[in-house]
């Protein structure tokens, strides 16, 4: 009898944590659709901006985009990105700037003194569940260092860090995707607003079309 109880307790203690979302196969996350990024506007006023895609990948852990865990906070499987984070973030920013009314050009555009060139590096891109007593909350962190420069002499840089949390009772693939999408949207909102604020300081920039 005692043996049966011990066996039941052992099996239960192993099985219960998995009910809260432990998974042994990788989960894939993908960039959010364009229409889910920042709201369309005309704050860019048609100014030219060159965005270099992709950014540099300066993450400490470049082999994956995140991890899944069990209730013991043990890593059980990777979270993978369908698009490399350096391209994911740069492309999302380019799309965000376009939706904000900028005329976005690719890196091959000829240099123009007043034309801003945006490049950068992804310092963090990781999705990881925060394991709590009752909830299992995937968090997505995105870190970016942006550099804006023009042939006419502007050189500016800024660090950004964004975090999105999806509160949930179970860890499903959808929750990891939701966290990654929300963090991307916040990153685009923040970076686009910052680029607008910077270029608005210098009316001589970006109007070379």
């Amino acid at each position, binding site marked *: 009898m005692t043996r049966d109880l011990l066996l039941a307790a052992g099996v239960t203690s192993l099985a219960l944590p998995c009910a809260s979302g432990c998974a042994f196969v990788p989960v894939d996350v993908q960039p959010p659709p364009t229409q889910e990024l920042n709201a369309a506007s005309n704050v860019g006023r048609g100014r030219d901006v060159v965005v270099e895609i992709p950014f540099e990948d300066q993450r400490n852990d470049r082999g994956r985009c995140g991890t899944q865990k069990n209730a*013991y906070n*043990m890593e059980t499987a990777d979270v993978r990105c369908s698009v490399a984070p350096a391209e994911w973030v740069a492309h999302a920013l380019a799309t965000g700037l376009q939706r904000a009314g900028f005329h976005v050009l690719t890196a091959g555009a000829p240099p123009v*003194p007043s034309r801003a060139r945006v490049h950068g590096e992804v310092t963090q891109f990781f*999705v990881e569940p925060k394991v709590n007593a009752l909830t299992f909350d995937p968090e*997505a962190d995105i870190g970016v260092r942006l550099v804006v420069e023009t042939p006419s*002499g502007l050189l500016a840089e*800024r660090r*950004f*860090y964004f975090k999105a949390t999806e509160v949930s009772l179970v860890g499903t693939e959808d929750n990891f995707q939701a966290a990654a999408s929300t963090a991307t949207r916040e990153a685009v909102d923040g970076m686009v607003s910052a680029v607008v604020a910077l270029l608005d300081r210098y009316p001589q920039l970006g109007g*070379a079309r």
Partner: protein
Amino acid sequence: MRPAGSRDLLALPVLALIAGCARHVVIDPELVPSHNDRDWTVHHEPAAPAAAASTGGRDLPSKVGEAQ
């Protein structure tokens, strides 16, 4: 080697808890502001409007074309 018993099954979660101190890659929410710059660091200002305009930019190719 003796076969695994029920006590071994009980030991597994304990070992898991010990090993479960996995490193956290994401940061705590209260640390996010310290990873965010409040404004741009401008290392160099762009040239003044007149100077920028006088350097030509996109007009240059068409002027060259006109000269030809």
